[in-house]
Every structure is written in structure tokens, then in C-alpha cells.
């Protein structure tokens, strides 16, 4: 077993210290209490501030526990915030791919569509924000399952509803597909949710790597897949690029 990581131990000590007493501590006080050089303590505090576990009072410069710590158990990224932060790159994905774009997050055992951009052909389309999609039968859902072990456990223990003759309905088959998603970094499905429809998706990651959502394109099978039925490599590239761009935006 590898040894413990010193900076994490120190960060934990900083958090315990801030949780005590008045809850407001200056840098000098923190470094003195923990016997750390000021520079080291400052570096730890800056990192904790970045992940929002610690906040600094603008007026006094003193540190306290961050609001994010209190909400650790609940959803980490607000759905409307994700839409707002991803709007530029999802537009760009639609423009580059020529397909409609959706961003999904997990909610109550399904994919919640938090953002939707029309296919750029000016045909009549309906805005699908707020729709719920099945996790196991969509590319967005497969991405969310692939990077959340607890969620995929839960999904596999429930009945995998058959939506078309191609829907994955056995836990073993689903687990195989999710392993492939993790290996390749993207997911796809063809006619597993709706006959004649296919989709491709990739993970959106928050700083640190946590997958907070998925972005993808969908449409008629012949638009999304090549004649052999495989997702078109250019579309996969566009989707992966957009997912990385949104992830970078979340880190900015």
C-alpha cells in the first residue's frame, strides 16, 4: 500500500482548524497553529479556495470554511450554471457537426436534458430542455453511467427497459459497453433508444476530473453513423473537442 500524501493530510488539518472556534482565521494564525511555513499554508489555502472548500473574507483577508463543503452531498454543479458555461461551445459543436446538440446531467435515475441546440438547418424543431432520457439507452446516459460506479450499480440492479430490439437489456452487456466507454473516452448508441436514431457523447469534467455531465450529438442513423453502422470518426472528434472545451471553460 502506498504511503499517505502529506499535502492532503495538511489540507485536512487546515479544514479541521477552520471548523473550530470562531471559524475565521488569518494566515499567520493558521501557519502557526499547524507549524507550517507561511508559504506552504498559503498554497494549501489557495488550492482549497479554488475547489471552494475555503472562502476568504474580502474585507479582513481571513479564511473560513466554504459553502461547497456544506453541500458536499448534494449536486455539485448547478444545471443552469452548466448550460450557461457551455452555451458557446455547444453552439460551435452544432455548427461544426451539423447535428443537434444536447447536454445531460444525471437526475433521479435518468438523464436530464439541461441544454439543447437545434440542428443548424433551420427546419422546424422543438426545444427539448427539461426532457428526461433513459440512462442505459442513450450515449449521454452511457457516459454518465461509465464514470459513476454507484449509479451504474444501481442501474444494473434495476430492470433495463427494452425500448427497441437493440436496447441493451442485460447487466453484463451494459458493463462491457461501459468499460469500452471508459477506455475510449466517448459513448455511442444506434437505434437503442429510438428506431432510426443514433447518438454520440463525451464526458464534461469539472477541475480535478469529476464527470459532471455529458455533451453529445444525435440524429438519424445515416447522419451519425457510416455505412458500416459505426459512429463517424469526424463526429466523434467534434464531440470530444467540445467536451474538452466545456471542461476547460469550467476550470477557467
Amino acid at each position, binding site marked *: 500500500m502506498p504511503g499517505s500524501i502529506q499535502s492532503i493530510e495538511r489540507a485536512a488539518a487546515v479544514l479541521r482548524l477552520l471548523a473550530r472556534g470562531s471559524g475565521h482565521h488569518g494566515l499567520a494564525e493558521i501557519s502557526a497553529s499547524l507549524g507550517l511555513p507561511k508559504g506552504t499554508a498559503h498554497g494549501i489555502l489557495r488550492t482549497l479556495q479554488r475547489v471552494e472548500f475555503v472562502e476568504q473574507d474580502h474585507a479582513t483577508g481571513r479564511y473560513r470554511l466554504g*459553502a461547497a463543503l456544506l453541500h458536499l452531498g448534494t449536486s455539485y454543479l*448547478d*444545471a*443552469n*450554471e452548466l*448550460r*450557461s*458555461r457551455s*452555451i*458557446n*461551445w455547444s*453552439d*460551435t459543436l*452544432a*455548427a*461544426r457537426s451539423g447535428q443537434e446538440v444536447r447536454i445531460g446531467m444525471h437526475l433521479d435515475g435518468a438523464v436530464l436534458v439541461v441544454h*439543447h*441546440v*437545434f440542428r*443548424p*438547418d*433551420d427546419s422546424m*424543431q422543438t*426545444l427539448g*430542455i*427539461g426532457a428526461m432520457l433513459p440512462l442505459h439507452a442513450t450515449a449521454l446516459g452511457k457516459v454518465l453511467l461509465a464514470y459513476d460506479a454507484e449509479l451504474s450499480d444501481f442501474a444494473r440492479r434495476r430492470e433495463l427497459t427494452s425500448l427497441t430490439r437493440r436496447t441493451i437489456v442485460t447487466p453484463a452487456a451494459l458493463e462491457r459497453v461501459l468499460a469500452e466507454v471508459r477506455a475510449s473516452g466517448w459513448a455511442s448508441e444506434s437505434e437503442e433508444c429510438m428506431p432510426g436514431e443514433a447518438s454520440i457523447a463525451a464526458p464534461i469534467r469539472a477541475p480535478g476530473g469529476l464527470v459532471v455531465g455529458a455533451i453529445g450529438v444525435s440524429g438519424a442513423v445515416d447522419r451519425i453513423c457510416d455505412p458500416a453502422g459505426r459512429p463517424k470518426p469526424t463526429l466523434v472528434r467534434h464531440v470530444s473537442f467540445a467536451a474538452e472545451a466545456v471542461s476547460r471553460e469550467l476550470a*477557467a
Partner: protein
Amino acid sequence: MSQRFVMAIDQGTTSTRCILFDHNARLVSVAQREHRQYYPRPGWVEQDAVEIWRNVDRIMPQALRDGEISPDQIVALGITNQRETAVVWDRHTGVPAARTIVWEDIRTEELIAELRERPDVETVRERCGLPLATYFSAPKLRWLLDHTPGLRDRAERGEVLFGTMDSWLIWNLTGGVNGGLHVTDVTNASRTMLMNLTTQQWDAELLSFFDIPARMLPEIRPSTEIHGRTTRVVPGIRIAAALGDQHAALFGQTCFARGETKCTYGTGSFLLMNTGTTLVRSNHGLLTTIGYQIGGEPVTYALEGSIAVTGSLVQWFRDNLGLIHSAPEIETLARTVTDNGGCYIVPAFSGLFAPHWHSEARGIIVGLTSYITKGHLARAVLEATAWQTREVVDAMEADLGVPSSVLKVDGGMTADHLLMQCIADVLDVPVMRPMVAETVSLGAAYAAGLAAGYWPDLEGLRRNWHLAARWIPQMDPGHREEEYENWKRAVELTFGWARPRRAADRIR
């Protein structure tokens, strides 16, 4: 030949962005930095022009780096900016004489009241198309000349220069103290109250009305024109367009035909209608302004409904009340309830702009009962933007006698799904968002690309417009009318609140 791109700099109220677009108007790279807002007294809003310039110095190279694009791949640069915000600087040192006075700032309220008493006040609106209000540049510039020691003398001697942010950036980019160009575009000039709308030149009568020395003013140029090349930050890039942000959005939405309208939702919100080569004067509280001018062609006029506070109300809710952590969370909070619970917020923070033009109005929250939660307040915040839009759309219809059939929207707030649905509901027309929400930047890029021959003509640009989202009205008509009546009553309550300050305050 390697691929080529157009660069846009959007110098906005709260941040400055540098965006690169490709030939299909697709976004390639974005770099952004926020700048500080200073609120030294109630109603005062200032910025540091040097901080903004330093941000441009960082984001231009960063946008190129992020897109892995070299400067010689940039065909042209288009600059767009927050309008009316006034900066005065020393032509020999490049140092601003004071902080910029931002468009929302209402310190000139008393000056406006004094000017309104002058016998020649009627000619002002006739000549510049704008009502006498704190919003525009001339009163701000006059205030700086009156309150900065020695500034008027320096202005008379030609030592200091005035500009809106376009002028400040172009002067700096083209060399600053070493031969920087002192120019502005006709759309920005149309917001100063100093330009004659018909001749598009500085107007001697207006200069005398506001008592502004002509020597400090920039040269007025068309919106699309090769101004020169950058010599600093990223040298050698052709500056091929400059236009005010709302005018850029009109351009970016490809509203090139008479009657085409857009509304941009940002810090404030601005509805502009292209009125072609006809100068339309409003009887319902709208402004007459220049839409844009393509180099070598006559100007295209526009009618504008300006709303001072929309996105900034959400920011106030976040920063001053602390009820949300980030601006988009207003939607999450608003969705915790199903209606406003009878509560209305009229954000007359800087008085009310179009269609009312009551500079003495101040904001209110009305309809408070013990039932109201922060969720209801969040709803009221979003609804305030929707109803203010309804008021300017109604004014536009009243002026032109034609009902609108659709609203084209853009800007950061279009990411708020609930707000967009609410606007469709209160207007009772579909709301359409184009594929590039960054329409202001896109418009600046279009204008620059057009001047540089990167795009051949306006029709070519039109083909780039694609629908990204459409919200359909769903509100019951009876309910809509009831709510509109309530909103109008709430607006009336804001009128006449601010009183002139006591003499003692004035001396301080």
C-alpha cells in the same frame, strides 16, 4: 495557404473578450477578463481605463495561443464596446485624467435638470436624436471638465483627448503616445449627444450647449473601414471595424433589412430596429440612433429601446443580497416556486430608461407579504426583464404601427431558459436565439471581415444565421393582461422618488 480567421474584441461593461471566428462564423477561441467596477457613491459607477487596456493586452495573445493560431492568420480585427462610457486621457502620457464614468452612472442628474431649463433645449433632441439624460456621454464629459482640476484648460490647449472605449482602445493599439489614431465610429459618436444625426459630424450648437471644447473630440469614421494596423500587443493586425456593442449585435444578427429587430440581453438590454436610410423620430420614448455605416455608403438608421438594468439586477441579487452563488442559479431558485407570489421588482437603479425616461425614479420591491420567499424574489427578478422588454416592444409597435411577429435575441442571459420562456409568454410571440449567442462579437467580426474582403457581402453573412433555439408562448391571455397591469402599477410607484440633494451634500 493556412486557414485564416477574424478577431473580435468586445469591450463590455463587466468584462473584455477576445474571440476568433472562422469563415463559417464559428467560434474558434475565446479569452476573457473581467474588470473592476467602482461604486464610490450611490448612483456612481466608474472603471479604470488602464485596467481595461491591460486586459486587452493579455486576452489578445491568449486567444491566439488557445486557438493555436499565429497573428499572420488574422485577416482583420473588429472592435465593439460598451457605449457612452466616457474616458479622458493625456495625449502625451496616455494616462487617464480620471476614472471612466460608466453609462449607468447618474451623477449628472442635477446637471441634466439645469440643462433642461435652457431655452435652446428643444434643439438638442432634434439634432442628436436622444433625450436629455444622464445615460449619454456629453453630460459625463461635461462633469469631468467641471470637476477635474485644470482639465478644462488642458482640453482647450489640446492636451487631453476624449473618447468612448472604442477610441481609447484604437488609440492604444495603434501606438498610443507614439502616434496613436484618435478616431471613433459613427455609432459610438451617435451616443454622445454631440453628433448631428443628419450630417454625422460633431455639431457646433450641441458642443456649445454642453460647453465641450471641439479639440478633444475624435474624428468620426464609418463603422467598417480600415483604421490602421496595430503596433502594440499583437502588432500588424488590420483594425477594420469599430461599432458600439448594440449596433454590433444588430449586425451580428444580420438585421440588414429595414424592419428587422433584435434584443440583446446583457448588463442592460437593448432592442434595436433597423429603419434603413430613414431617420425615424419616436413619439413613444425610443431613441433614434445610427444602426451602422459601411465604408463608402450612407448610414443605416435604427430605433432603439434601451433598458438600463436587466442582467445587472441578477448580479445585484447575487453580490449585494447574496441569495445566489452564481448568476445562472437565479433560474434554479426561481424554479423552486411556480409564480411570483404577487411580488414585483422594478429595478430603476439608474432611473428608468425607455420608454419612460424618468431619471428620478428609483427601484422598488412591491407586493411583499409574509408568504414571499427568495424563490418568489428570483422570479420577480427574471420577470422584470421580461416586462421591461414588453414595454419597449409596445413602444416600437406604437411608433411604427406594425405588430412584431417574432423576437430575435442574443447575449449572455439567453442561457436562462426560464427567462426566455417568460419573454415569449409576456410578448405573445416566439423568441428565437441564433446559433452564436456571442452576437456582439460576431457582429464586430462580420463588420471587420466585410471591410477586409474576408466575406464578400451582406447576403453571404445572412446565410451564416441559423436558429439554435425557439421558445413558444404558453401563457393564458387573461393572466398575461392581469400581470401586465400589475407591472405597470409597480412602475408608476417608482416615479418621483429621488429628490435633489440638499445644498450641504452638494458642497461636500
